[in-house]
């Protein structure tokens, strides 16, 4: 499954959303170059929910940002829907959800959700319809006129998810979206996100620190290790699409979680 991909081989059929081959990325810092990612190969099919898990500094956020064309790789190839990340960004192929909601404080929730639609030139009537649908999708109907500071952290992040989905991209990139929220809110949002993924049939790439979150949400879990950031293991998670939080008590869940934990520990061991 981790074999390097031959991009030019037209293997990138329509089912492939992401194709990454031999990706490396280094940053230049004051202390010299830092290798953030090294030799990454990854293929993601349409409709999958992929989690990236690993300790801080393993490059999971950088990988997501490279796919989004927010960082430029030093070597290797990334294909998003068969296009370069730059073309994919220009085609508005993905919605991005950041660690913080990054809502614009001077816009109410409705207008925050409408922001990408304004930029992409959607007509007003269409914008209104899409905003209403987005609010409904994340259970924020009735909160459209509120300003971000009037919402809880969880509601703000839900609004930011509605914003990322407002222009209906096939691909949703999420960078630790629930990292700053407490456990109870996080559980609830995990369930909602799973529902949303099931309904919208999007492909989701999800960065997280949390093992239960990764196992609960994903179809596949990519375990990463640091210095330099690379893929240590890829674990299949075959839970049914309509699962609930109860599956976290099942032996299968614990088994997968254990494998992830082992992977993380192994990845860590050759650090010092």
């Amino acid at each position, binding site marked *: 499954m981790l074999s390097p991909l031959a991009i030019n081989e037209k293997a990138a059929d329509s089912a492939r959303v992401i194709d990454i081959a031999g990706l490396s990325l280094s940053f230049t810092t004051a202390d010299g170059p830092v290798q953030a990612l090294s030799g990454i190969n990854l293929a993601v099919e349409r409709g999958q929910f992929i989690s990236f898990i690993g300790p801080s500094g393993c490059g999971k956020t950088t990988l997501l940002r490279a796919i989004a064309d927010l960082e430029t790789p030093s070597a290797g190839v990334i294909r998003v829907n068969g296009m370069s990340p730059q073309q994919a*960004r220009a085609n508005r192929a993905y919605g*991005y959800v*950041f660690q913080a909601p990054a809502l*614009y404080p001077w816009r109410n929730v409705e207008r925050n959700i409408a922001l990408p639609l304004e*930029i992409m030139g959607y007509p007003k009537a269409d914008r209104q319809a899409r905003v209403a649908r987005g609010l409904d999708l994340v259970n924020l109907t009735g909160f459209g006129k509120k300003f971000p*500071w009037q919402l809880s952290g969880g509601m703000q992040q839900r609004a930011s998810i509605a914003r990322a989905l407002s222009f209906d991209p096939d691909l949703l990139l999420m960078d630790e979206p629930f990292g700053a929220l407490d456990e109870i809110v996080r559980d609830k949002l995990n369930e909602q996100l799973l529902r949303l993924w099931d309904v919208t049939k999007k492909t989701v790439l999800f960065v997280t620190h949390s093992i239960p979150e990764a196992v609960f949400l994903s179809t596949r879990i990519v375990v990463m290790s640091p210095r330099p950031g690379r893929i240590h293991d890829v674990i299949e998670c075959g839970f049914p699409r309509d699962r609930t939080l109860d599956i976290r008590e099942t032996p299968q869940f614990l088994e997968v979680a254990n494998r992830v934990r082992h992977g993380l520990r192994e990845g860590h061991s050759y650090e010092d």
Partner: protein
Amino acid sequence: MRIDRALPVTIIVAALIAIWYVGAIFMNTPLQRDFYANAGRTDYSAADLALADLNMDRPKLPAPHQIVAELDKTVLETAPTSKRSLVYHALITLQETLLGFAIGSTLGIGLAILIVNLKVLEKSLMPWIVASQTIPIIALAPMIVVILNQFDITGVIPKAVIAAYLSFFPVTVGMVKGLRSPDPLQLDLMRTYCATRAQTFLKLRAPASAPFFFASMKIGVAAALVGAVVAEVTKSEDGGLGARLLAGSYYGQTVQIWAALFAAAALSATLVGLIGVADRIVSRRMGFAR
């Protein structure tokens, strides 16, 4: 609640007035003693002396009630069309201030937009902008008047230019900071939408700069008024509060000087206050008010 807020203000104002009266007695006593000596009077009590100190014609430091009386005379009892009216002079100053502020803030915002959009300009332009403010305006003002006079530009414009010279700087500095205030995440978001520079400016940088904009405008309008007054001192024949200051000092009319100072301060406070009102209205609309 109201008492809570009114009480400290009242105490401070009362204390300042008390200190002022003490200061006035302290500063005017030697002069008043001389007057008494010249008139051959020796039979005055300390109370007589203090009372006389506070009601001199040309005191070193006029007492507050003298300034109030002067303001009453020159603002309320004199027709605003008369050259003896402070309102007449204040309107001249206001006109120069507003024109100078309009020029200065437009220039300031324009420079800030250029600097934020073109990295090279920060290095090449900013030192000159800073240098422009290190020259004392009192030295530069007469030259601006002379130079503009060469081009037959006279009247209100040279003074507005001097006012603009002082007011563009805080606006430039404030707006550069304001237009750069969006955090990296907010900017990344625009990138993920493939937004153009113009869209990023209009939908992110400009609204994010709103709080900085109003702070800049407040400092800018106060600076413009200082510039206008300095310009009037330079070229006093057209009137204005600065001309009143100059005339007052020429004839030793300290009460007139202080009255003009108070008028200028009141004008400045009014202008800053109006911008504060606009700030509050816009903040509420933009959801900043809590």
